[in-house]
């Protein structure tokens, strides 16, 4: 009930604000107009959404693989953890978004820079979350590995990784929230497809309602990704 209210209340406020003529439609279009555009221009919006979704999912998959690999490598080797740990933290001091023009310069205007952007946003929460989890194996549990003189890789698979899964889950939840933003910003810098591109194009043509429609699709995509991730993680007890 409160959930529905949290959704309906801002919507009603928005409709009232625009319906009363307090704000010009080219500044803030009425929600009904945005809804109408979502319906009538679906044929335009859906292919762009498909492009963005592909960038997001590819970036998530690659970022997850890279983040997990980094965390595992750091957990297995103190040398690598000393080497990569500070590097990983330092990479967070740099706002990833400022790299968008550089990535476009290096990787062109296609899928590459957008996926790279998503990867950069996903790697840190995944790697640092999983690494923290791998380092937090309770001492009594590690004793089982010591008493059997288990190979570090076996201890990782059978003892450390299962205990670190909730940490990985927390990192992944954050990553999934950031991923669409990364793709859209990548598209703003240089693209001919995708929801970010559609927003810029609609803006240039003063089609504010189309811009808002694209925005709503981005929000919906993020919410659905979040929900699906949460469901999947819960299934695995993460």
């Amino acid at each position, binding site marked *: 009930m409160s959930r529905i209210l949290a959704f309906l209340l801002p919507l009603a406020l928005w409709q009232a604000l625009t319906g009363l003529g307090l704000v010009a439609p080219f500044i803030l279009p009425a929600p009904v107009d945005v809804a109408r555009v979502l319906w009538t221009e679906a044929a335009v919006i859906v292919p762009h959404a498909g492009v963005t979704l592909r960038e997001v999912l590819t970036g998530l998959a690659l970022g997850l693989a890279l983040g997990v690999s980094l965390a595992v490598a750091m957990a297995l080797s103190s040398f690598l953890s000393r080497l990569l740990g500070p590097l990983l933290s330092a990479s967070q001091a740099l706002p990833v978004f400022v790299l968008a023009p550089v990535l476009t310069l290096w990787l062109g205007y296609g899928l590459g820079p957008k996926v790279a952007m998503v990867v950069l946003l996903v790697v840190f929460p995944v790697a640092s979350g999983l690494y923290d989890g791998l380092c937090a194996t309770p001492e*009594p*549990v590690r*004793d*089982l*590995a*010591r*008493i*059997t*003189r*288990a*190979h570090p890789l*076996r*201890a990782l698979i*059978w*003892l450390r990784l*299962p205990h670190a*899964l909730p940490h990985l889950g927390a990192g992944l939840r954050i990553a999934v929230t950031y991923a669409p933003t990364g793709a859209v910003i990548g598209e703003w810098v240089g693209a001919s497809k995708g929801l970010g591109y559609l927003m810029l194009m609609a803006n240039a043509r003063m089609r504010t309602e189309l811009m808002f429609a694209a925005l709503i699709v981005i929000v919906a995509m993020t919410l659905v990704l979040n929900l699906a991730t949460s469901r999947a993680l819960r299934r695995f*007890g993460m």
Partner: protein
Amino acid sequence: MSVARLQGRVILADRVLVSGLDLRLAPGWTCLLGASGAGKSTLLRLLAGLPTAARLEGARVAPDRIGWMAQSDLLQPRLSVLGNLRLMARLRGETLSAPRAEALLAEVGLAGRGAASPADLSGGERQRLALARTLSEEAPLVALDEPFSALDVPTRAMMHELAHARLAGRAVVMVTHDPQEALRLGAQILALRGGEVVHLPALPGPHPVDLADPALARAAAALVAQMRGAAA
């Protein structure tokens, strides 16, 4: 016949924690008593070759394979009962055959429960599974760090009997703070007192001593009195 031996002294932060140490373990149960912080668990970990804050100045002779049971059952919640039973073999890179696993489960009264989750087991069943996991090691030396201290009294008594029967023929060393438990199980009873290991009289067998045996209650009371006298 000695299965393991620990000799020398134990140093903790430049202080001698235990001196004049000469611990010899033969097949049968040795129980190690002592007040909290006396260093019982440290001694056990040193014997098992596990890391501690303290270090041994002396000699350690111990078999390659050592069974280990800790205060908590250390069951892995993401593994099934069978998965937990196979854990030690997996950590060693070996395999525990299905018939052997089933036989071990039967030995601790968990036959047919292999597919269950540890979350579905009672406290006693969890500790029985931990015992089966320890048995799967087939180690000549088994180190127990107060594994039964968290169990209720009837379950603990049942675990004493089960563990004693299943670990027969091996050198077992158990740390406990319960004199009755030590007397019930131990063929050799040691106490850490004032930085030294002292031998205390054990009850004549057979072990585990019947809980209804008046000698057990008498000996336990005497031991408690002695420990209080030493502490005062």
